[in-house]
């Protein structure tokens, strides 16, 4: 194990550039994981369930880091003009927050970002549970559309998440 003690380092061989202070390297991603979900529409019911493609069983690299999860999820209101759904975001079994996704004739894709403290270095689940307001009525359904290209058509939509575990020492 070798350690170089210095204030700054020159990261670029061009001599006309200023050396980089080490303090500017304090914010760094130490682990990352990501996934796409292309499994097509998911039909929720009136029980809270993990949304497929919107969770990960994650093992933090460090216990003193922070974990930022960016989730991109498309959805549509089905079987009634007014779609209603309930969402709860968990990390390590701890609820981080809850919100509704509702609206009249709603079709969209949203990007949600949650930032939580590491829970240690053991594996635990991080992600969304959701349920519908009523089963197959006033429902928000992920990963599909209602209208498309001028007609009524259900398209398969991609979901995506990225987890970045990071340290911000000295920043």
């Amino acid at each position, binding site marked *: 194990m070798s350690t170089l003690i210095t204030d700054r380092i020159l990261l670029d061989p061009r001599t006309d550039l200023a050396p980089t202070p080490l303090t500017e390297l304090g914010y760094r991603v130490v682990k*990352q994981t990501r996934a796409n979900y292309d499994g097509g529409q998911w039909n929720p019911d009136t029980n809270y369930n993990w949304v497929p493609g919107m969770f990960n069983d994650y093992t933090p690299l460090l216990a003193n880091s922070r974990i930022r999860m960016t989730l991109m999820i498309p959805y549509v209101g089905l079987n009634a003009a007014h779609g209603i759904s309930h969402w709860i975001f968990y990390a390590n079994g701890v609820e981080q927050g809850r919100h509704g996704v509702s609206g009249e004739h709603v079709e*969209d894709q949203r990007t949600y970002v949650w930032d939580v403290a590491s829970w240690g270095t053991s594996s635990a689940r991080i992600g969304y549970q959701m349920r519908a307001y009523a089963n197959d009525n006033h429902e928000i359904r992920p990963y599909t559309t209602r209208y498309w290209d001028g007609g009524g058509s259900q398209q398969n939509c991609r979901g995506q998440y990225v987890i970045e575990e990071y340290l911000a020492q000295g920043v």
Partner: protein
Amino acid sequence: MTTLRVDNLQQQNREYLLPVSQLQQRVIKEYRQTYQNGSWDPSDSYAWAPGLWVDYQPASASSRIRCTMTFNFSHTNGHAIASCVFYSNGSTEQGRHSIAGQSPEYRHVYVWEFASWGTGKARIGYQIRRHGGSNIPRFFGTHHWDGVGSNQTGTSQILIEEYLPIS
């Protein structure tokens, strides 16, 4: 060219070590643009949405590209419906989704992340069409404003961060 091989860096007078292995992920190129040319009502055919595309040349073939877009969405006559397809490398579909609602007016953030296609210049962005002659969506504007009907000019932004991921 010289190479110094070391496990850790340490700032003078600071206690913590900076393992070089934790510096793998880094942004190597960034691009941003702002669009303020007024609202856009898409047609019945797919077209590149103004302000929501960029001809981008990756710095590396082994990187990942994160494209963050934020823009206003509104309507012209109540129930607005738009079909949206996001592409990278000109014609590689990354995904599709609708944007619709009853009298919607809001501003959203969309983040797409995908692998670099190489180091050739190619287009990243949204192609969008409307549902039809009714249910017309309006991008980058407003419908109601300050107590009346008024189409305000919105600001759209794209931020591209190309980064080398942790291997």
